[in-house]
C-alpha cells in the first residue's frame, strides 16, 4: 500500500490528509513536532485572551484520526533521504514513505536585530510561541510590537486584553501599508488609538537591550529613543520554515520551489501551504501565499493529484478576512494598496461606526475588480459569482443588497452607499431588493 507521509499538521497538511483519505486507501502519516493534534493557528490569540482553551482550537476530536486511519506521529524530522525515501528523526527513528508532502509552514521573520534571541522576545506562529508569550508577559509593564501587519495587531489585542500597555512600531507611514489602501489603514489606526495602542509610524527597531540576565528590558529605535518594556513582539511577517531542507537535492528559494501542480523537483515529493514557493507565480498573486485559505486549497489540490486525479493549483478569485480589534475585515477580488492607472475606486465610510467599503473597478470597462469591506459582512458566494461573471460596478451596486451578510436587524447602508456613488459619478443607479433567487444561483 502506498504510504503518504506529511510533514506538518497545519491546515495544509491536514486538508491534504483528509482528501487523500476520501479518495484512497493509502496509508497516511502526519508528522509534527509542534503538537499532538491539528489546531487552528489563527485561533492562538484567543487562548491567550481567555476566549478559549487550547483544546477548543482543535477542530477534530481525538477519535477522528483513528476512525479515518490517519496516523499521527509526534517527532522532529531533522533530515530527509530523498534517494531512499526515508525520514530521519531527531530521536533516531526512521520512517519510509512512497509519497512525501512538505507542509512545514512558516517561522516569524527576524532580521538580524541585536538582541533578537533574548528571552522576552518572540513572534506568534507556533504553539511554542504562544507558550513563550504566556511565560514572558506575566506581570510586565509594557510590550513593544515590531512590524505593522496582521499578527502585530493581533498581538497588540492580546497584550491589551491583559491590561498590558502596547507600543506598536510600524516602519511604513501607515498600518499594513503593503496591503491596505490608505483610507482603510487610517480607519484601523484610528481604531487602534481608541484601544489606547501607542502607535509609532515611520519607526524602525534598532536593537533590543539585554537586562544583563539574557532577558529583554527595552528597545531602541533607529531614532535613538529607548522604550522600556518586558516583551518585544516580532511580527514583521513570516518566512517558510525550511532550514532543514537547505543544501539537499530539493530545490529551494525562499520556500520549496514547486510547479503549478505543487510538485517539487524530486519525484513524489510535494510542497504545500506557507512553505511552498511557486517557480512562476500565478497571475496577479505572490509566489508565496501565507494565508489559511490558500494552504487549505493547496491541500485539497495536492490530494487530488496524489490519488490520481491530476490537478493544477488554480485558486479562484482572491478572498481573505481578518479582524482588527472590534472591526471585521473581508476582501474579495483585488484591492491594491495603490491604484494603477487603469483602475478606478469608490470609497464609502461611516467613521462613527468604523464602517467602510472600498470598491475597485476598471476605468474603461467599468468591470468590478474587488472590494474591501470593514464592519459590514459580505456574502462570499455572491461576490465570487460577480467576479467570475465580470459584472460592472454599476451592477454590483444595483444588487448590493444580495451581498449583505450582516446579522438580521442590523442597519443596512446600501442606499447610502449607492447614493454617494451616484452623486460622485453622475450615475442614477437604483438599488434593487434582495433576491434569494439571484443569491442561490451562485450556490451549488
Amino acid at each position: 500500500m502506498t504510504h503518504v507521509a506529511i510533514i506538518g499538521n497545519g491546515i495544509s497538511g491536514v486538508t491534504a490528509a483528509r482528501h487523500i483519505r476520501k479518495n484512497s486507501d493509502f496509508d497516511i502519516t502526519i508528522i509534527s513536532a509542534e503538537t499532538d493534534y491539528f489546531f487552528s493557528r489563527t485561533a492562538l490569540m484567543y487562548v491567550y485572551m481567555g476566549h478559549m482553551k487550547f483544546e477548543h482550537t482543535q477542530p477534530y476530536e481525538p477519535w477522528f484520526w483513528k476512525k479515518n486511519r490517519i496516523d499521527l506521529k509526534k517527532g522532529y524530522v531533522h533530515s530527509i533521504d530523498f534517494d531512499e525515501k526515508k525520514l530521519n528523526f531527531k530521536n533516531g527513528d526512521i520512517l519510509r514513505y512512497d509519497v512525501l508532502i512538505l507542509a512545514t509552514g512558516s517561522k516569524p521573520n527576524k532580521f538580524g536585530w541585536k538582541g533578537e534571541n533574548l528571552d522576552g522576545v518572540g513572534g506568534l506562529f507556533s504553539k511554542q510561541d504562544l507558550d513563550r508569550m504566556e511565560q514572558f508577559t506575566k506581570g510586565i509593564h509594557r510590550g513593544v510590537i515590531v512590524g505593522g501587519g496582521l499578527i502585530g495587531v493581533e498581538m497588540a489585542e492580546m497584550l491589551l486584553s491583559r491590561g498590558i500597555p502596547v507600543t506598536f512600531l510600524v516602519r511604513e507611514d501607515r498600518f499594513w501599508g503593503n496591503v491596505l489602501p490608505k483610507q482603510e489603514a487610517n480607519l484601523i489606526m484610528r481604531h487602534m488609538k481608541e484601544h489606547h495602542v501607542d502607535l509609532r509610524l515611520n519607526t524602525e527597531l534598532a536593537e533590543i537591550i539585554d537586562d544583563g540576565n539574557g532577558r529583554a528590558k527595552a528597545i531602541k529605535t533607529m531614532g535613538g529613543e529607548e522604550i522600556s518594556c518586558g516583551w518585544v513582539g516580532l511580527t514583521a511577517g513570516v518566512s517558510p520554515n525550511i532550514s532543514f531542507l537547505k543544501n539537499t537535492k530539493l530545490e529551494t528559494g525562499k520556500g520549496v520551489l514547486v510547479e503549478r501542480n505543487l510538485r517539487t523537483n524530486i519525484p513524489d515529493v510535494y510542497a504545500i501551504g506557507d512553505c511552498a514557493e511557486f517557480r512562476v507565480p500565478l497571475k496577479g498573486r505572490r509566489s508565496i501565499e501565507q494565508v489559511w485559505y490558500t494552504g487549505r486549497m493547496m491541500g485539497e489540490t495536492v490530494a487530488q493529484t496524489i490519488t490520481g486525479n491530476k490537478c493544477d493549483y488554480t485558486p479562484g478569485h482572491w478572498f481573505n478576512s481578518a479582524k482588527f480589534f472590534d472591526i471585521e475585515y473581508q476582501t474579495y477580488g483585488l484591492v491594491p494598496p495603490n491604484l494603477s492607472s487603469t483602475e478606478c475606486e469608490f470609497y464609502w465610510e461611516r467613521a462613527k461606526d468604523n464602517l467602510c467599503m472600498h470598491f475597485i473597478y476598471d476605468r474603461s470597462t467599468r468591470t468590478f475588480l474587488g472590494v474591501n469591506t470593514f464592519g459590514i459582512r459580505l456574502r462570499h458566494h455572491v461576490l465570487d459569482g460577480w467576479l467570475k461573471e465580470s459584472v460592472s460596478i454599476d451592477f454590483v451596486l444595483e444588487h448590493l443588497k444580495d451581498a449583505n451578510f450582516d446579522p438580521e436587524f442590523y442597519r443596512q447602508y446600501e442606499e447610502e452607499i449607492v447614493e454617494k456613488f451616484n452623486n460622485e459619478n453622475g450615475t442614477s443607479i437604483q438599488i434593487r431588493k434582495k433576491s434569494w433567487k439571484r443569491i442561490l444561483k451562485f450556490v451549488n
Partner: protein
Amino acid sequence: MKSIKILGLILLLGAFGLFNVLFFLGEFKVSDKGLSQFIESKRIKSEVFIKDAQTLINQSFDSPKDLSAKILSFAERSHQYHRAKINDLEAKGVDQSIINTEWGKVIWLKAIKKHGDFSYPLVKASGYGFIVDHKVLLFFLTFGIGIIGGLMFVLTSFALDGPAGIKNNGIFQNQATNKGWIAWSVFGYLIWFYLLLYFFPDYLVNMIYIVDPISEILNGGSASQWFLYGFMYCVFMIVMGIRMFIKYRHNKYQIVRTISVLFFQIGFAFLIPELLVKFNLPWYDFKNSWPLNYTFFFDWNINQLLNSGNIGLFMLVWGVFLAAVIVPVMVYFYGKRWYCSWVCGCGGLAETLGDPYRQHSDKSMKAWKLERYLIHGVLVFAVLMTGATLYSYFSESKEFFGIETENIRFWYGFAIGSIFSGVIGTGFYPIFGNRVWCRFGCPLAAYMGIVQRFKSRFRITTNGGQCISCGNCSTYCEQGIDVRAYAQKGQNIVRSSCVGCGICAAVCPRGVLKLENGPEEKRILEDNPILIGNDGVKLRED
C-alpha cells in the same frame, strides 16, 4: 470606575448574604385562627391531628424548620393512627361506611415531593416579629440593594471593557466562568435553593414574607414560593438582560432578542397570570405551550378552565391551538428560535443569567448522542403521560394499561418537571452550561427540533470558504453544536437543537455565519468537499 464596580459587587454580596441569613431567622407561633384556616383549607378531618396541632398554639419556634417538623410529625402520627384503626375496623368487619369515614381522615403525604407543601401554609401563617413587621425594609435591603449593586457591577462594564465588540476576555481564566471555586459554589447554592423551592417551601417562608407586599398588589393575596420564584426570575433576567444590552450593544439581533425574552417573561409569565388571579381567573401563561407546559391537559387544569367562563374556554382552545398550529407554523417560518430564544421563560433565563456559562456545553459526539436519546425520550414520556391523562379524563378510568395515571403524572412531574428542568436545568448552569434542560430535556424543544430539522426555512448559512476553524462558534454554542464542523466544510448548519441565539455568528471573527430564513431549496447543502474559491479542482465522477 473600577471601584464602583467593586462597590457594586460588595453591595450585591451583602444583599445576597442578608437574603440567606433570613433562612436562619424568624419567630413562629401558631394562632388559633391560623390553625383553623389551615384545617379548613386542607380539609383535615383527623381529630387526632387537630388535637395534636392545638398543642402548638402559642408555642414559640425560632425556626420554620422546627415548626414544620412538628406539624409533619403530627400528620405522620395521625396517618398511622387512622391506618391502624382502619385495619382494626376491617378485622372486626364493621360497616363499610364507617371504614370510609375513617379513610377520609387519613392525611396523605407523598414522602418525596409534597411533604413541605403540606405544612407550608400553616408555617407561613404563623410567623411574627421583626421579619413579618418589616417586610418592606427587608425587601429594600435584599432585593433593592442587590439590584442596585448588580446594576453597578454590570453597568460599569460599559466604561471598563472598552469600545463595543465581542468582549470574552478572560472567560477561561476566571474562577467564576471557568469552573473554578466560585462556579462550584454557585452550582451548590443553586441546587440547594431549587431543592428547597420544589420540596421544602416551608423552610423558605422568611424569604417569601418579604415579597408579600408585591404579591398583594398584583394578585391580592400573600406570596407563595412560586410567587417568590417568579419575582426573583424576573429580577435576575432584568439585571442580567441589562448586562446583555451592554455586552452586545453592537449587535442589534442580540438586543432585540433580549428585549423580547424580557417582555414575554415579565408580561406573559409573571404580570398577566398574577393579575388574572386578582380577577378570580385561572393563573395562565399564554405563551407556555404543551408539552413544556405538561400540566395543561391535567384534569384539574381542564376543569378549572372549563369552570372559568368564556375566558377559560378561550384559554383552553388557545392552549391547544398554540401547541398544534402556532408552534409548528412559526418553526417552519423562523426556526424554533422564535420560541426558545425569543419567547420562552427557560430560554430567557438561560440567555440572561446563564450567558456567562454558555461555553460549558459539551461539544463531543458522545454528548450529541446522549442528547438525542434523552430529549426524545422525554418527549415520548410527555406524550404518553398526556395520553394517559386524557384517556383517564374521558374514560374516567384511573388506570392506563394497568398503570395508575396519577402515578405516571407524579413521576413525570417529579423527575422531569422538578428535578430535570429545575434543579438540574438551572443548578447545572455554572458547570455544564446554561441550556442543559433545553438541550437534553425539554419536550417542546424536541418537538420543534423535529420540525426545524425536516421542514423549516431557518438555517445558519456558512459564508462560502471564509471559515478559519478557530472554534469560537463551537465554544460559545450553548446547545453544544459543533458549529465549526459544518462551517469549515462550507456547509450550512441545519440542526434540530439550534435555538437560534445568534452568538455563534456574533463571536465569529471572520463574518462566516448568518442566521436567516430563506427558501428550503439549497438549505441543506450536499457534502461538496472542495470549498468555494478553489476553481482548479474538478472531482472525478466516481
